[in-house]
């Protein structure tokens, strides 16, 4: 297993991924090897936070007490500029460009993904909400 590195899943303000030194594939779910070719030489990378929304669903009924306070919120699949897909959550989706530092809207992990809008628009930044 490669050295542990911090990203949003551990509360740090970063989206990270791995790229394979042998075959060049990128992967989002962290592992000690490349799921495409099995090589163990992986480079830890930091993503730009930019990408395109691939799919979206507005959750109006949540499953857990932690998420209930955020209803309704969007669950998104985002195709990142670096070539991997990730799930994101947005408590607000502004129809206007970059509007939106998400301000006090907190996602459960302390993250808020600032979006320009819905399907096929860009995720322009990811901000950690204090």
């Amino acid at each position, binding site marked *: 297993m490669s050295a542990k590195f911090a990203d949003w899943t551990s509360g740090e303000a970063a989206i990270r991924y791995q790229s394979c030194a042998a075959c060049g594939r990128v992967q989002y*779910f962290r592992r000690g090897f490349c799921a495409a070719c099995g090589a163990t030489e992986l480079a830890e990378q930091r993503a730009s936070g930019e990408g395109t929304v691939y799919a979206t669903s507005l959750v109006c009924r949540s499953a*857990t007490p932690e998420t209930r306070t955020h209803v309704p919120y969007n669950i998104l699949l985002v195709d990142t500029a670096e070539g991997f897909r990730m799930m994101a959550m947005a408590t607000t989706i502004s129809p206007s460009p970059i509007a939106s530092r998400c301000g006090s809207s907190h996602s459960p992990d302390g993250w808020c993904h600032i979006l320009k809008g819905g399907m096929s628009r860009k995720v322009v930044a990811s901000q950690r909400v204090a």
Partner: protein
Amino acid sequence: MSFITGVGLTSYGKHEGLSSLDLMSKAAALAISDAGLTRAEIDGILCGYSTVSPHIMLATVFAEHFGIGPSYAHAVQVGGATGLAMTMLAHHLVDAGVARHVLVVGGENRLTGQSRDASIAALAQVGHPDYEVPLGPTIPAYYGLVASRYMHEYGLTEQDLAEFAVLMRAHAATHPGAQFRDRITVADVMASKPVALPLKLLDCCPVSDGGAAFVISRGPTGEARVRVRGCAQPHTHQHVTAAPTLSELGAEIAIAKAKAASGVAISMCAMPRSMTALPSHWPCFWRDLGLAARGEAAARVRSGYFSRDGEMPLNTHGGLLSYGHCGVGGAMAHLIETHLQMTGRAGNRQVRDASIALLHGDGGVLSSHVSMFLERVR
């Protein structure tokens, strides 16, 4: 060669006071009786899982409870694909001579055995624990993602999706065991509470209590002559984030492999079945299964193509949406309804010709697929 020699199905809905084992036992007794067998003749048991009563050895827990000492037993877990995956395994087991009569059983008191929130929360754990679950996706949200992408790519509307819920309710209206039997309209679906948009309450499966079972045997045990002609499964991913695509589905691979294993063309199917967890991906499946061109599935529903007297009757018991969804048994009910149709025992739901049927089951978020052709032989 394998035959489905007996089937047993409880009503779906509320079964106050019955445990998962109780519901499994009821269905199992019905199936064994339907096959004309005794418990002692059952030498293999395959069972699904129960989210209400999880156990690391559910098959033998059930075997002891039911009073059988099989020579082969274990549980199978591939989500909504479990019922057909067990059928496929039973088919190979009896074909290989490992067992003569395999009892396949699933049942769960998912509605009355736990709170609705507990049920939703338990199921949401199919998400990735680090990269998905902390963000708050629900099961309907996973399918909402799929639906949003499919609508985006193929121009389907929410009204189009609603057609499937309306059709399933129309079918369930004639089945006494169905959980929901009051007819609904597209307007009703559109006006129902938002759950995970674009999916609304009536687009989503209910949570149900119920049990389902069947017996797979090496040869016929009575009048019923329904055999498994061929089956196949691909598993393309686990988590929705890791899905290669949400619009080109594993169903397509499954059906191609099942066709190859069966030597059957879709055009031969008098009564295909689609076994799905939510209707949002039906149109996707139908295209992938070759039943409708992209974007045409809703029009075909409206024209009656999938109705009881249509060219391709679909889920004549009401499917997961209206017959009900008790977990593993939810999908198994589709096979049981198919068997009743193929053996001419579907009563007022009987379709004209049910000599060949296509079943498809999927588990996870469109990640595990099983396709199967059943054939009636004389």
